[in-house]
């Protein structure tokens, strides 16, 4: 899922300076699961904004803010000075497209594509490089999980299974090594991984997919 985190209230009220009618728009998908921008978080944020002195704060949570199909109900809403989206950056942008005359502000920082490790703990797993290599690395992505995105093994800073950049972070290459060792596939690590084709990643420009088989 897309994992996000709410911005500090001060930053949000800073964006909303001078606005008296604010609609907070949540999303029922990823940001609900990571407890950053679902119905419940929308209610909490709306209360905080009222306490901060904003006259009228509306609340609305849609099923998926990244999909126009679910945004229809929003067009029938009353008068607002601006929208405050508690979705990821995708939701913020789609709302902006839908309401080009209204400012749409982001209430969250979109952090990464990741997993819920435990209660209150999320971590990154994928950088959507557009050309998956997980078949070669034991199902553990060094692009997302190694601080230097190394493709040919650990740097000299891997120590006791941890990354030199942050002692709380596992060294991705230690994880890859352990998994391949357990599977008896260490020979995979002897082959040179040649420079990656990053054109499938964001480096190739904004990406899009067109599928004629499902297009109308």
């Amino acid at each position: 899922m897309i994992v996000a985190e709410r911005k500090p209230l001060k930053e949000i009220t800073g964006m909303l300076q001078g606005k008296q009618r604010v609609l907070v728009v949540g999303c029922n998908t990823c940001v609900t699961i990571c407890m950053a921008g679902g119905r419940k978080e929308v209610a909490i944020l709306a209360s905080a904004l009222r306490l901060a002195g904003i006259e009228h704060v509306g609340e609305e949570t849609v099923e998926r803010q990244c999909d126009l199909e679910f945004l229809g109900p929003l067009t029938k809403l009353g008068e607002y000075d601006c929208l405050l989206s508690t979705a990821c950056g995708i939701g913020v942008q789609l709302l902006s497209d839908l309401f080009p005359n209204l400012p749409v502000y982001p209430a969250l920082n979109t952090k990464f594509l990741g997993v819920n490790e435990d209660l209150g703990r999320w971590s990154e797993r994928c950088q959507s490089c557009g050309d998956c290599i997980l078949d070669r690395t034991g199902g553990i992505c060094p692009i997302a999980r190694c601080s230097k995105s190394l493709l040919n093994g650990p740097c000299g800073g891997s120590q006791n299974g941890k990354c030199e950049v942050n002692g709380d972070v596992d060294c991705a290459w230690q994880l890859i090594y352990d998994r391949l060792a357990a599977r008896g596939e260490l020979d995979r690590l002897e082959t040179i991984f040649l420079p990656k084709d990053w054109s499938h990643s964001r480096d190739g420009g904004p990406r899009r997919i067109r599928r004629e088989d499902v297009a109308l």
Partner: protein
Amino acid sequence: MKAGSRLEKVLAAGHFAVCGEMGPPRSADAQAIRKKAQYFRGYVDAVNVTDNQTAVVRVSSIASCLILQEEGLEPVVQMTCRDRNRLAIQSDLLGAAALGLKNVLCLTGDHQSFGDHPTAKNVYDIDSIQLIWGVDQMRKGKFMGGEEIKVPPQFFIGGAANPFGDPFAMRVPRLAKKVQAGCDFIQTQVVFDVPRFAKWMEEVRDRGLHKQVYIMAGVLPTRSVRALRYMQQDVAGVTIPDEYIRRMEQAADPAEEGVKMAVELIQQLREIEGVAGVHLMPVMWESIVPRLVEEAGLYPRPVVDDD
């Protein structure tokens, strides 16, 4: 001969090589580079110049190398992947070769979070092994992208190895990959833990890698227990046995003890089969190099042709 550099000739002739290393200044101070050069002249076969080491901005390695070359020293350009993509790296390397620089050490580079611009974006378009492969392609007359290079840059290609990083079992396979990618010489992380280094070398010999690549062991002379402790505690990938800390603590003259320790380490490393030389990293203590080389019995340096 791959590049015919002085370092390559010294190693090819079977001499026990001595390299030095210097960090360029954090300002446009050519004089500081020339001053440090005097400590190395005649005492080492080549001098590495770091490339924004620990992710702190300094005079570029190539520019510093050119100054060292003017000073009559043989430089080793350090090239990291942190700050440049494959276009910039190849462009800089063509420039280095055009300026007459012949040795290049290929590194991934310290993460920018350790340096003076922690908010910078990093590049890491390629990693050190891919860089070695790329420089080897270049000297064979091809850009990394596949197109022909009419006048290929001829480099003596180096790489780093850290026998003290984890997982230990991946350290020799990684070296093997560097050799396979086209690496000619290796400079290791600083060695204090000689038994672990010896164990690594044993695996290196088991694979016959010492016959395919010149391995130079890293030695770091230090003059304070504080510096040693810092390395032990805060520098990932460096292991320092407590015995060295104790010796420095108890020393009446820590600088003297530091020289003694470094000389001992050089002698112990020289005894290990397959070690082709030492790489001296006198961080902030370049002036000690002449004494170290002399006391280790490595002076004078061999004369090779075309010097």
